[in-house]
Structure formats: structure tokens, C-alpha cells
């Protein structure tokens, strides 16, 4: 057991160190949601009317509405960044160190996504502190209840990133991930507009949003920020995590995974 924790500590430290040393990544991770919050939300404030929906008990401004979505966005981008670094590590060779360790591969890959989650949690709290400076504050207890929700949503998105990394052959293909994963996941969710609003324009789009695991991650974050428990969102996030993680483990299993089929160049 001790050896498992030793590996976990080393992997988390490595991820954190890399993040701290990539200042542009740290900066981008904060600027992106702040631009959405300060510029986009201000513009949409007048255009979008919001009714009172749980967990809100009163009318809220659009800026307040999109904060949980932006927390999710930070984690989504972070997970995809981690996925990118996994592909990079695999191309550069350092992933081999991890994959040839005598510790169980599943544990080491879980450590990897836990490390990415830890980094994303720090990013979210820094973002919330900045949002508070702009006057967008959450209930004090919400900041505490938020933590487990962020860990769960971070793990789910991290597992998705891991699954994607196991299917991407080259670093160059990663641009496709932006177009086909990040943008649809973000825009077809409750991050920017509530589902009932989406249903007004298209019930089909609403159904797609309701199916999107990212919607449930955002709702889990939203409810926890107000000290409320959203069981359905938790279940959905938990199931999604299990499915993505199982897929990633298959992808990284040398006997079953896609890796076996796609390395003819490495003879």
C-alpha cells in the first residue's frame, strides 16, 4: 500500500510542478474563464432572461449563473491539456516509464488523472477568488461543499482525457479534440444556458444537453456551490467516470487496447 501512495505522491508532484512552471498555461487557465465572465456574461446579461430554478432561490444575474459552468470549463480544458501531455509523453517516451512500472497500470493511470484533477481544483479556486473580487460571490459554505464535487467532476473529465489520449496516434491530431470534444461538450451543456431555455429553441438539443456528462458535472458543481446535493448529477458523473475509465484502461491495456493496432511505425 505504501508503494502505491509513494507513486501517487510523485505523480501528483510532477504534474503540479509542470503546471507551476508553465506560467502561460496557468495564465491562460485563468484568463479564459475571466473573459467569459466579464465580457461575455456582461453582454448576455440583457439578452437572456433567467427564471428561478433550483438551486437558486431568487433571481440571479447571468454572471452568477455561468460561474459553475466556467468552473467546469476550467476542468474540461485542464483535462484536455493533460490528455495532450499524455500524448506528448507517449511520443517523447516518458510515458514508457509509467507503463513499465511494476505497479498496476490502472493505479498509475488513476494517479495521473488524480494529479490533473488536483491542478484543476487549484485553478477553479483561484478563478472563484478572482470572481469574488468582481463581486460575484457564492455562499461561504459553498466553497467547502464545492471541493468534493470538483474532485468528482475532475476525475470524470480526466478519465475522458485519458480515454481520448489512448485513441490519438499523433500529437498533430489533437486539434480535432478541440473541435469534436471540448466545444460540443461545453456548448451542448447547461454551462451557458439552463436546459429549459435550450428546450424553447429545440427539444432535441435539450435532450442532447441532458445526455452530455458535462451538463451533469456542471450541475453537480452548481448545486454544491449552494450547499445542495444533486443525486442525479452525482450518479450520472459517477457512471460517466466508470465508463470513461474502463475505456481508458482497455485503451492502455497492451493485450486489448487500440495501442496494439496502431504502432507499426515503432519497429
Amino acid at each position, binding site marked *: 500500500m*505504501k*508503494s*502505491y501512495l*509513494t*507513486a501517487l*505522491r*510523485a*505523480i501528483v508532484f*510532477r504534474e503540479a*510542478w509542470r503546471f507551476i*512552471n508553465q506560467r502561460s498555461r496557468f495564465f491562460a487557465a485563468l484568463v479564459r474563464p475571466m473573459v467569459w465572465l466579464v465580457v461575455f456574461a456582461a453582454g448576455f446579461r440583457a439578452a437572456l432572461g433567467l427564471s428561478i430554478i433550483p438551486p437558486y432561490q431568487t433571481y440571479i444575474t447571468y454572471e452568477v449563473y455561468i460561474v459553475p459552468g466556467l468552473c467546469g470549463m476550467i476542468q474540461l480544458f485542464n483535462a484536455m491539456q493533460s490528455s495532450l501531455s499524455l500524448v506528448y509523453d507517449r511520443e*517523447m*517516451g*516518458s510515458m*514508457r*516509464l*509509467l*507503463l*513499465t*512500472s*511494476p*505497479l*498496476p497500470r490502472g493505479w*498509475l493511470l488513476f494517479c495521473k488523472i488524480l494529479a490533473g484533477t488536483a491542478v484543476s481544483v487549484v485553478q477553479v479556486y483561484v478563478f472563484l477568488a478572482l470572481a469574488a473580487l468582481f463581486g460575484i460571490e457564492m455562499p461561504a459554505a459553498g466553497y467547502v461543499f464545492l471541493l468534493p464535487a470538483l474532485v468528482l467532476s475532475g476525475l470524470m473529465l480526466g478519465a475522458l482525457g485519458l480515454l481520448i489520449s489512448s485513441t490519438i496516434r499523433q500529437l498533430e491530431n489533437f486539434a480535432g479534440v478541440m473541435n469534436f470534444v471540448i466545444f460540443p461538450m461545453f456548448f451542448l451543456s447547461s454551462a451557458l444556458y439552463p436546459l429549459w431555455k435550450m428546450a424553447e429553441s429545440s427539444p432535441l438539443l435539450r435532450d442532447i444537453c441532458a445526455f452530455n456528462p458535462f451538463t451533469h458535472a456542471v450541475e453537480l458543481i452548481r448545486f454544491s456551490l449552494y450547499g445542495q446535493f444533486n443525486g442525479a448529477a452525482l450518479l450520472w458523473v459517477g457512471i460517466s467516470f466508470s465508463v470513461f475509465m474502463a475505456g481508458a484502461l482497455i485503451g492502455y491495456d*497492451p*493485450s486489448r487496447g487500440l*495501442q*496494439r493496432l496502431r*504502432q*507499426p511505425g*515503432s*519497429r
Partner: protein
Amino acid sequence: MTIFSVRNVSYSYGTKKALDDVTIELDAGRFCALLGPNGAGKSTLFNLLTRLFVTREGSIRIAGHDLAREPRKALAALGVVFQQPTLDLDMSVAWNLQYFAALQGLSGAQAKKRIEAALERLSMSERAREKVRELNGGHRRRMEIARALIHEPKVLLLDEPTVGLDIESRIAITDHVHDLTEAGLLVFWATHLVDEIRPADDVVVLHKGRILKHERAENLCAGASLQDAFKALTSGQIAEAEAG
């Protein structure tokens, strides 16, 4: 004592056979060069030995452990130096060693002791805090070799470890690894450079996925240079294949 055994291993990429019925048995304390031109199947074999790939055809045993049935025990007995460098260039020398030790499950005083010994072997104790980026290619390679030995494996695999190094570094690394066999370590060294092989070394000649020869280098030469013997073996196969 046989410590490394590859029996009847085959591997294909789709319909193309990369390894065809490969069998290699090696004893502890030996230096064995896996000699083959580019595309011979050396990297495929290394990927199978390190369990990055698996095959259902044949079996691999390391230090008595079947790689398919007891992968963790087999991998624990294996030290690996990949052809591509696997160091974190912006981390310190000591941190790179610590990270590897942690991935092997080593921690605390035991890890510290092994890392200090590794740094001592490298004569790099004073440079432990330096970033790897500041080391030259030869030092980086030596560091990777020392790192692969931290968990005290019984078998050391090296996949063309001298590629891209100057002649001085190549000689130093080749000598260093030969010396390691004196303590009972089995070294399995993939290369296409015959000058890295000594007369008493075992040589396995791999060509087009098949083992052409496995014997001592001095016997393989039979008076000629190893280079000529290797050329004769592989070109003979090419001519044979073309004729066939």
C-alpha cells in the same frame, strides 16, 4: 542459470510479421548483444519484453516469472533504457531518480540510499540539484542507465543506448555496461553497431524478424571481423529472400 527466456515468440502488425518464432535463452552475468539492421524487429522485441506490447504466440520469462502471468514480478526484475530519452529535462538529476524510484514503489530511506549510490556511481553527487537539461548527451545516458538500476533488477535491457552520442561517450557507456555484468547482471543490448561488442559477448543476430544466429561473438566471426560476419549473414538472407 537461465534468467531470461524468450520462447517461440511471434508478433505481427496486421498481416506483416515483425517477429517470427523467436527463441532466446540467456544466463545471468552475461552481456548479450541483439544485433540487427534497422527494421529487423529489435524494437518490437523490446516492446514485448517491457510489456508495452503483448503477444499470444510464445512466452517470455524474466528471473523465473512469466511476463504474461506475473507481469508485476517480471517487470520488477527488469531495468530498461529506452532508445528515446525518458528524462524530465527541466527537473533536477536527483528528482528524476526519485520519480523513477517512486514508480518502482521505493520510498524513504531505501530510496534515498539507492539514489545516493546511483549518483555516486555516476560521479555526479555534486550535480544532483542541476537540471538534466544542463547535462551533455553522454551524462544523460549514463544517468538513465543508473536510474534503470535503482530497483536492483536482474536483467538490464538497453535499446540502442548509444545512438546520437560521440565516440568517447559511446566507449565509456559500452565499457560501463560491460562492467555491470561482473555483479551477475544480465545485459541485453540492442544495437546495429558491431564495435560495441566484445569477443566474449553473446550475439543474437536478428534479421527480418527471425533469429539467424545466437553464439559467442568470437565464434560468429571465425577469423573474420564481426562486421563482415554480420554483413555476410544478413546479405545472404537478403539474396536468399530475393531469389526465393
